[in-house]
């Protein structure tokens, strides 16, 4: 070989890195977002790439490319249940692919070494979830699984500065510490063991569950012991956690446990008297509601503070009472939930509440309540909706982002009606607003929403950042993961907000940190550069 061996090794390694970036940042997102359109774009491009390589080198380049992408994928999917399985699986993948590449691609060992090294580094040096977000974010932290129970798919999550250090703690529920996973699956052998296991299987079991407060300390995320959290802070935390009823009405969260309210045999038999099914369902609901009301002494909802002007809010016996700007107010209401507050066109702060319908209440100088705006169930699906106040056009009046099917951006008008600034597509059942907040070093807050791919009909939703413009929502970024429970706040105390989220049924918390490197542009430059290099090399050879 006339080439310098070190230079050759480096060249192959750089090619592998370029391949890695192009595949994960350009090809994969293009397929996820554009589906068949991506095929139309990439097929000719692939053909071009094939022919741009000189026939004498084609086999080597092709085999290296496929071999590298295969090994990268294989290493990502190696069984991770035990360290031994991980090591053996990884070693087999490396040996098999390295030999194949060596033999079939007739590549030298320097090329094979570069291939293996880069694929290995790509799998051990950083959190692979970063690749789904790398155009704008890196994964700063991923927690272990926080819940080891049998059935809860996700718990609510919120952020609050628990220890008063200026950065946010992540608050959710879990039981990984209280309910460690058994080392191995028990196999009952003796009569006694069989009896004990049968007894367990007959009944749904209670599970421990407790509040998990995670704080960033010395470059790591650690759990704050719950007994170190003062009682009044605990009250605020519980108020801040989004209301959620995991397992309702079959389970109730009570005294640090998720307690079953039904059991396998009686429930099956009860429901198999099919005519009685709604009667039984209704009784179970009412029993739960009765217990909850008894525990809350009849209160429907309570908030110590809400927005900038409301305090001591309380809904009880159909009455809403509280203070607005320090002055008491009260009035009748059919609402059961205090949602949030929003700035209205007349300069007042409205109180957003929900019962069967959604209402924005204002407080008159004499302390009476007026329903200034209403969103009825006829207009929007409220039962599953989420409502986020957001001043998206910077006029000091909040719009209401309604996450539902469809989703809307509603602007309150002076005359008490809503103007629809934007609505999600008529056939788009996936789009949901999730936040309105400033991320990273950005100056302005942006709309964060879960949105499906631009072309596909598949419902998988990716977290995306948007700016509102009169033409529509302009996409700023996208994380190719179906994230839920999205919260935005400064976790690590650097005065820049991170995105905190998790995925359905994983119980792992992810923290995404924004970077300001134009990774996407750079990757395109690398791609174009690589193609350019190929063209030049081809014509010089030809």
């Amino acid at each position, binding site marked *: 070989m006339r080439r310098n061996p070190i230079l050759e090794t480096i060249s192959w390694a750089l090619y592998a890195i370029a391949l890695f970036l192009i595949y994960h940042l*350009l090809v994969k997102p293009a397929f996820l977002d554009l589906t068949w359109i991506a095929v139309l*774009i990439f097929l000719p491009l692939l053909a*071009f790439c094939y022919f741009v390589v000189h026939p004498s080198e084609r086999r080597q380049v092709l085999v290296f490319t496929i071999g590298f992408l295969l090994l990268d994928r294989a290493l990502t999917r190696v069984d991770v249940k035990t360290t031994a399985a991980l090591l053996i699986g990884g070693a087999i993948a490396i040996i098999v692919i390295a030999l194949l590449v060596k033999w079939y691609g007739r590549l030298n060992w320097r090329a094979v070494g570069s291939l293996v090294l880069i694929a290995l580094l790509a799998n051990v040096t950083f959190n692979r979830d970063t690749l789904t977000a790398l155009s704008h974010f890196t994964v700063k932290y991923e927690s272990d699984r926080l819940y080891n129970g049998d*059935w*809860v798919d996700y718990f609510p999550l919120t952020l609050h500065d628990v220890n008063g250090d200026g950065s946010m703690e992540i608050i959710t529920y879990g039981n990984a510490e209280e309910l460690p996973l058994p080392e191995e699956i028990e196999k*009952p052998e003796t009569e006694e063991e*069989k009896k004990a296991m049968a007894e367990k*299987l*007959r009944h749904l079991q209670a599970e421990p569950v407790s509040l998990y407060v995670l704080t960033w300390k010395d470059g790591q995320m650690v759990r704050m012991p719950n007994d170190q959290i003062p009682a009044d802070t605990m009250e605020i935390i519980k108020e801040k956690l*989004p209301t*959620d*009823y995991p*397992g*309702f009405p*079959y389970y109730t969260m009570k005294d640090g446990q998720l307690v079953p309210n039904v*059991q396998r*045999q*009686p*429930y*099956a038999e009860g*429901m*198999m*008297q*099919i*005519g*009685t*099914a*709604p*009667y*039984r369902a209704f*009784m179970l*609901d*009412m029993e739960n*509601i*009765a217990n909850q009301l008894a525990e809350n002494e009849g209160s*429907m*909802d309570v908030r110590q503070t809400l927005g900038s002007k409301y305090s001591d809010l309380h809904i009880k*016996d159909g009455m809403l009472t509280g203070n607005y700007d320090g002055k008491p107010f009260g009035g009748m209401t*059919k609402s*059961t939930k205090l949602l949030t507050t929003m700035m209205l066109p007349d300069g007042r702060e409205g109180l957003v509440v929900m*019962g*069967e319908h959604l209402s924005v209440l204002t407080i008159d100088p004499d302390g009476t309540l007026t329903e200034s705006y209403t969103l009825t*169930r*006829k*207009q929007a*699906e409220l*039962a599953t909706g989420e409502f986020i106040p957001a001043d998206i056009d910077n006029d000091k009046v909040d719009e209401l982002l309604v996450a539902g099917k*469809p989703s809307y951006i509603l602007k309150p008008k002076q005359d008490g009606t809503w103007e*629809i600034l*934007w*609505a999600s597509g*008529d056939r*788009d059942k996936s*789009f949901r607003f999730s936040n309105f907040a400033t991320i990273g070093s950005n100056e302005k807050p942006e709309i964060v929403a879960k949105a499906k791919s631009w072309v596909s009909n598949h419902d998988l939703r990716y977290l995306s950042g*948007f700016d509102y413009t009169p*033409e*529509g929502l*302009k*996409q700023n970024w996208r994380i190719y993961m179906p994230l839920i429970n999205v919260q935005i706040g400064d976790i690590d105390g650097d005065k820049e907000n991170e995105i905190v989220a998790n995925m359905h049924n994983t119980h792992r918390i992810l923290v995404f940190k924004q970077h300001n490197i134009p990774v996407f542009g750079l990757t*395109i430059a690398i791609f174009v550069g690589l193609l350019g290099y190929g063209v030049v090399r081809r014509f010089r050879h030809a």
Partner: protein
Amino acid sequence: MRKATKAWALLAAICTASLLGGCTYESGTKAFATTNFDQKPEQTTTVQTESGAEWLKTALEKGKTDKEAQTYWYRGYVKNTILSRTTTSMFEGAVINGKGYNVDARIAAQPYSYYRVNDKRYIKAKDQFVTAPDEPLAFDVLKGFEDWLPFMDKAVQLPEEKVIGVVSVPFQLKMTGAEWLKNSQSPLFEPLKKQLVERPDLDYILKESTIKTTIWFGKEDRLIHQYETWIILPLPEAGTMDQQVMFNLFKYDDTGGIHIKEPEEVEKYLLY
């Protein structure tokens, strides 16, 4: 060659633009897409001469005595929606009246099976069969339908529709939870009726609730084919809880297709 290079350049430009170009999600129709909330049921054009109560009585009578109505498949679910969370329990299987039934069930994401054959009862959970020790409830799948009889004279007949291939006549009832509780003779309601005496806060929940029940009767066979109840209750800190209780009874008289495990089959694998 030059032409080809130009074509490639153009293609590359299109690819780059499509990858780089900021996508804008244009607004859909700027009008509220009306939901079916509080929608008046469409009146049927072919009014039956008999009332809903008579249809129900006939269905229960035939369900108990008709030879063809003694074996059937069923599936059902109870779906609760609170805010953005949905919790579902599900049941499906087959019934042979007088002998037994099987239930493939799920409560809050936990699957299990329940078998009831003659006087034997088993649970299968996590791939293990165990005996079910509790005293059983009466084996009477149609139990509870008779409790709707006092309301059925006011039921509205809806347009006929096909339910799993069978032309059916639906009847619908709508009331508040308070009315349901007050006028129902169901013994299941007794504990709540007693509790209400000292719990005025529950009165409020009941008055503000909505119950909507629809029963679909087969036009030809007069048997019950579908049964749906919507229960909408005000829920503390959560707006409302919307619950759908839905059952289908289908393939009546499928004598050949229904097989319920005999006790001997289960006993072989019994854990305890």
